[in-house]
């Protein structure tokens, strides 16, 4: 990973921004050098298409397209009466570039700068080779299709500044790995069926040994060596089947699993093979009559934790979120055609340790529940201003009285 962007992140960032800004300015010319490719809002797309279903700037007569998004916000939080004060956050700047090498071969990469340049990562860099719409080869750094949020996480698409807890604090979104696989879809009438299956590198022991002090799959994101080798020497399998009815809804069933621990080294057995298995269901729908958009995800995790380790690290976890977004005003406001105000609400729930204590047979805590009402304003579909109020209750492992935390968040997210 010792490549230019990691050695010179700021220079890389400024270079890309320069290209994008020039492109954006040129896009306003009558004979544009670049042309804005809007999001495809047709009904033939599934969640799995999210990586390409973004606004791009296409440079004239070249097969290259550029794009990205920026998220920034302010946050004021208080936990159990103790304020953390007011902060401003540049959560992420994401740049994506795509190139059509031939009609059947295309490449896309997504590079993300989180919290300024604190974390820089290649979230996606894959080559897609289309043999048939139902049979597309994908290889490189891919986003494992577990749930929907992991692949469809662009800030401007959401009315909430915080990402769903089930996605980022239970599942490890954004979870990228090196690997290969196939995907495709087919449709008949109003029905579309898609599938994805990949073999990639995977998790490591940190999921049951980390400073969160609980089984925590996102801890594996800290292991940058996963882009170089599989910790367990075994592939992580990720598969998903998605069904969509063009008039109603989309539902996805996904699975990700494999051995996570280093059970063997230099031919010596260090431990038994220990698996992590994840099953997720995601759905989204828009109620036509009211325009209400509903999206959600539920995930269940099983982890083989040695019985001689500590129950601090749970063997079973689950969590869910649901967003309800209600457009309340859609009209021309100032000079923005189709500007939209939305009212929204999110419910988050995560249980990091399902089960009972061996010693007392009482319920293990380590749970979080949060509710987030929100107001969002979209001057255009690609830009969203968001005001969120989040209230959460989090219990420790012993089920002691919950820590209460509330946050006001105001910010924006925009494609560019």
């Amino acid at each position, binding site marked *: 990973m010792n490549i230019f962007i990691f050695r010179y992140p700021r220079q890389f960032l400024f270079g890309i921004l320069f290209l994008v800004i020039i492109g954006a300015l040129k896009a306003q010319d009558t004979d544009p050098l670049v042309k804005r490719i809007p999001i495809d809002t047709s009904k033939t797309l599934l969640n799995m298409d999210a990586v390409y279903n973004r606004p791009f700037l296409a440079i004239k007569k070249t097969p290259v397209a550029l794009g990205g998004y920026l998220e920034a916000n302010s946050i004021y939080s208080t936990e159990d009466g103790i304020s953390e004060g007011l902060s401003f956050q540049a959560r992420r700047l994401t740049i994506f570039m795509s190139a059509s090498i031939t009609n059947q071969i295309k490449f896309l990469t997504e590079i993300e700068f989180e919290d300024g340049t604190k974390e820089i990562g290649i979230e996606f860099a894959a080559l897609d080779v289309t043999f048939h719409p139902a049979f597309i080869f994908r290889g490189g750094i891919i986003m494992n299709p577990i749930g929907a949020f992991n692949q469809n996480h662009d800030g401007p698409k959401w009315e909430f500044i915080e990402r769903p807890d089930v996605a980022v604090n239970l599942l490890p979104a954004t979870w990228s790995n090196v690997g290969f696989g196939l995907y495709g879809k087919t449709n008949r009438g109003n029905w579309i069926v898609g599938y994805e299956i990949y073999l990639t590198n995977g998790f490591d022991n940190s999921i049951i040994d980390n400073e969160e002090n609980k089984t925590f799959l996102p801890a594996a994101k800290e292991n940058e060596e996963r882009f170089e080798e599989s910790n367990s020497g075994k592939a992580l399998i990720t598969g998903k089947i998605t069904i969509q009815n063009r008039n109603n809804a989309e539902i996805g069933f996904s699975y990700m699993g494999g051995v996570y621990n280093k059970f063997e080294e230099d031919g010596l057995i260090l431990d038994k093979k220990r698996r992590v298995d994840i099953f997720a269901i995601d759905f989204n729908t828009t109620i036509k009559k009211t325009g209400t958009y509903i999206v959600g995800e539920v995930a269940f995790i099983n982890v083989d934790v040695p019985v001689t380790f500590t129950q601090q690290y749970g063997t079973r976890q689950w969590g869910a979120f649901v967003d309800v977004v209600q457009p309340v005003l859609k009209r021309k406001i100032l000079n923005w055609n189709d500007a939209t*105000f939305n009212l929204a609400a999110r419910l988050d729930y995560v249980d990091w340790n399902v089960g009972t204590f061996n010693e007392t047979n009482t319920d293990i805590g380590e749970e979080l529940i949060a509710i987030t009402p929100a107001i969002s304003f979209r001057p255009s579909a690609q830009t969203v201003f968001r005001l969120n109020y989040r209230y959460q209750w989090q219990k420790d492992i012993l089920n002691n009285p919950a820590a209460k935390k509330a946050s*006001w968040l105001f910010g924006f997210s925009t494609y560019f």
Partner: protein
Amino acid sequence: MKISFNLIIGIFTVMLLAISCEKTMPLSPVENELLDGPIEGLTIEQQIRFLRGDEAFSDVFTIEKGLGPIFVANQCASCHPGDGKGSPFVRFTRFGQSDTLGNQYLDFGAPQLQHKAIPGFEPEQLPAGATFTNLIAPAVTGLGFLDAVSDADLIALSDPNDIDGDGISGRPHWNNIPDYVELRPNSISKNGKYISRFGKKGAAYDLLHQTSGAYNQDIGITTLFEPFDPFSGLVEDPEVSTQTVNDVVFYLKTLKAPIPRDVNDNDILAGNQIFSQIQCASCHMPTLQTGYSPIEVLSYKVFYPYTDLLLHDMGQGLNDDYTEGFALTSEWRTPPLWGLGLSKDAQGGSYFLMHDGRSLSIQSAILIHGGEAEQSKINYSQLSETEKQQLIKFLESL
């Protein structure tokens, strides 16, 4: 256009009002319902050090940071959640010593059983024939006050031969001390031994002794003070810095004392009187005073821990045939009762009282007392139901 503009103004007004409204934020629990927090009057420098210690106390040890390979818990706060009492989830076992001749099982991993292990390792098993006791960690609040009580005061409280004839004969735990501890001001020695006061058997001399031992025996962490790895038995490099250990000791010394609640409630006032009348206060001494302490706010302070820091024979019902130092197997150091009513908030909503958490209620804990407390237990049994409730209400107010 005008409507839209007004709408925008309206929404932004709502936003500003909302953001400025502190009522949308969760309130802090009342101070006397929390065990954690520093004692009042620390200097800014001391508060910074307190925060460093607080952070270290909550630090989670991973394998990379030295956890284990055999251990009991992976952070200080696991056994003392919210600085309160531990729960059966982190109950631990000590074994191997049944008399004052020392622990005969040191080569088998004594005194503490590390019953958990990192992946790939096997935890310790209790050796056949070894006597043992199960223990639950105490709350750690107010320890600085207990640490600063002078040896002379403890000796004055003791009555090893029951000269006053009240059936209660507390004695200090004269014990050998490790060479790394610093003697407290005006410490008193007897036959080369000193008064130790921390731990269920009162076997730890001071908070450095207690903390270093806990890092080592609970988490499997070596320090400059306790350099032997519990698994290999070999001297290993310190896995936490001496500064970190000292910061944790400072944190423990400067945690505030629990604050009683509803002190003017009539039942609680009555319960307080009953507490003394039935001789609970003979061991659970309501009032102590600190001597000199290098931490100024701890010096010469009167405080209310409900302990005498002495060893008492608690009878056969509480004799686990295990001991430490020179305590007898039936002897236990009087545990402070301050913070008793807040125990549930650290123990998952239920009481787990006595040294091993066997009592699920205060009444049950009272009725388990024996030995020197036998008469107090009988006195309690003879109280009316109302008086019992008043006593329990008083204890819950501490």
